[in-house]
């Protein structure tokens, strides 16, 4: 892992990987969305609105997965001071916030025809909204801070914030078990799925497709930060050479 903490080695992998993740992700997503909209039957209870599942579940998965990645990079930054850990954390924050917002919005759109309301202050929805605010706080905390000027590393405060915020992830996951909720219980667990296979298979495609796109967005944002760092370093060297 230490070997790939070097930005040059990282770029040698990230540059060819980015278009692959982008292309395969888009392809899987298009096939999954097409199948979810046209090839599977409506749910016997919820009717056509169950098709929102194919964009709502991947959004929830990536919103929570994004913060998990942020907490891991925060830990790596604190313990090993990897130069790429802070850059990765900064790159994950915006797509993580995007998918959390999409999870809330698509959930709300699903809730109106199914529950008769756009919003309910129950455990699942409220804890997901807290995650959105946590992302906003992290982005505000790391925008224009000292670490950004010093190669993209996180400040100690931002790394600890990422770690402490991770407490919300198991709360979101268990919220439908711990509290009474309009939201259905866990449909997919390690033990299996309560969703019929006739409806389930496009979800695998959209989950993979969105995950690949998320990876591509993170790699693009990391490459931008590394390129900006290199420009800043060269300008500093030029200024030193010319005695400015």
């Amino acid at each position, binding site marked *: 892992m230490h070997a790939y903490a070097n930005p040059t080695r990282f770029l040698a992998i990230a540059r060819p990987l980015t278009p692959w993740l*982008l292309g395969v992700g888009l392809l899987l997503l298009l096939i999954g*969305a097409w199948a979810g*909209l046209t090839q599977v039957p409506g749910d016997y209870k919820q*009717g*056509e*609105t169950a*098709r*929102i599942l194919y*964009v*709502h579940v991947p*959004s929830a998965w990536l919103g929570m997965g994004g913060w998990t990645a942020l907490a891991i990079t925060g830990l790596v930054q604190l313990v090993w001071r990897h130069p790429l850990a802070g850059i990765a954390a900064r790159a994950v924050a*915006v*797509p993580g916030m*995007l998918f959390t*917002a*999409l999870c809330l*919005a*698509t959930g709300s*759109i*699903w809730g*109106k*025809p*199914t*529950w*008769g*309301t756009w919003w309910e202050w129950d455990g699942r929805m409220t804890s997901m909204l807290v995650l959105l605010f946590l992302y906003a706080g992290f982005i505000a905390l790391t925008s224009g801070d000292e670490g950004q000027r010093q190669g993209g590393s996180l400040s100690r405060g931002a790394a600890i914030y990422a770690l402490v915020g991770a407490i919300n992830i198991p709360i979101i996951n268990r919220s439908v078990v711990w509290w009474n909720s309009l939201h259905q219980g866990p449909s997919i667990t390690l033990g299996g799925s309560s969703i019929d296979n006739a409806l389930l298979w496009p979800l695998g495609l959209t989950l993979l497709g*969105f995950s690949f*796109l998320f990876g*591509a*967005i993170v790699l*693009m*944002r990391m*490459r*931008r930060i590394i*390129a*900006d760092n*290199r*420009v800043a370093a*060269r*300008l500093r060297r030029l200024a030193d050479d010319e005695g400015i």
Partner: protein
Amino acid sequence: MTGVISGGGQWGFVAAAYVLTAVLTGAVLLHSWRAMAKAERRSDALRKDRK
């Protein structure tokens, strides 16, 4: 239940969810791509100037 919508009226909600997801994901994807390409062009240009 009050306010529950069934039948053909549900398709509008499905379309709204898919369009919103496509537009927002596409916007972040495009912004990330353009920002990366611009930054890498600047970095490459500066490196060539140094040589």
